[in-house]
């Protein structure tokens, strides 16, 4: 059920050098690569700090709810599927379907934000703030940075639902998948590995 879409000389972005083979706006891929590197640097810093004080980090980590994190992983990955199906739909010229899938991706993004908000509220009510200890400094820092990406991704999805085109949808979907990818890595790092 693969679909093919012709592009000038056979590449999605002819004239963009090494970025020519990537779908959507090449500048989005520059952003995606740089964001991945930034998160990798934060992960390295967390790993370093955790190794320096493992007992304190383990003691703090037990206050997180891995089931909530897991639920959010399932929600975000399903939202990613909706974004990918929107790309399929717009490439096939099914604009109404594309809008519907983008709406589904946005809705699931909102569910993710709601669950995360409830989790933050629960932690803050328990007196666990970014200043509580090293682990919660990283927990709030990393998840809030990711949360900001979710909000930006939702704004992009909303924008391309309004200004619907193949290139726009591919660009927004690529960023949305970056948001997925970072959460896939954050979830075991903060919630599961103990």
């Amino acid at each position: 059920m693969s679909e093919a879409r012709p592009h000038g000389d056979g590449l999605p972005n002819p004239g963009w050098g090494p970025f020519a083979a990537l779908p959507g706006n090449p500048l989005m891929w520059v952003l995606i690569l740089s964001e991945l590197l930034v998160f990798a640097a934060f992960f390295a810093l967390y790993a370093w700090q955790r190794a320096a004080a493992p007992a304190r980090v383990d003691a703090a980590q037990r206050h997180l709810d891995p089931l909530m994190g897991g639920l959010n992983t399932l929600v975000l990955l399903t939202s990613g599927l909706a974004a990918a199906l929107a790309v399929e739909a717009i490439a096939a010229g099914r604009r109404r379907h594309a809008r519907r899938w983008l709406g589904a991706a946005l809705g699931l993004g909102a569910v993710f934000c709601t669950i995360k908000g409830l989790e933050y509220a629960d932690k803050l009510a328990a007196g666990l703030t970014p200043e509580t200890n090293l682990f919660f400094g990283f927990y709030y820092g990393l998840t809030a940075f990711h949360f900001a990406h979710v909000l930006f991704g939702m704004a992009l999805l909303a924008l391309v639902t309004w200004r619907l085109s193949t290139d726009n949808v591919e660009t927004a979907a690529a960023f949305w998948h970056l948001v997925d990818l970072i959460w896939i890595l954050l979830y075991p790092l903060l919630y599961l590995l103990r």
Partner: protein
Amino acid sequence: MTTLPGARRLLIAWATLMVLTLVSMLSARLEEAAQWQALPLWSAGLVLLATAFKAHRLLMVYLNLRAAGSAWRGAFVGLLALTLALIAGGYLAARWGISPG
């Protein structure tokens, strides 16, 4: 030509991602999380393996890097491998009491 993955491949990838997420959660022995025992190494290894496979599927199918050429595939998979190595290294260093300071 850019070949999109197609709805069937996307649905299979999504189902795989759902199953692997549940495998991660089970591997992390969430039923024991209340007692908060350290994970056995095989269990932590399974969590990381499931994470690696999930990230790979996401890159290749959702982001459609399978259609983007071997250089880009290699770059992203290399960056993913480096990130996972950092996560695994930090976890093992903490488990084995190897302090950087």
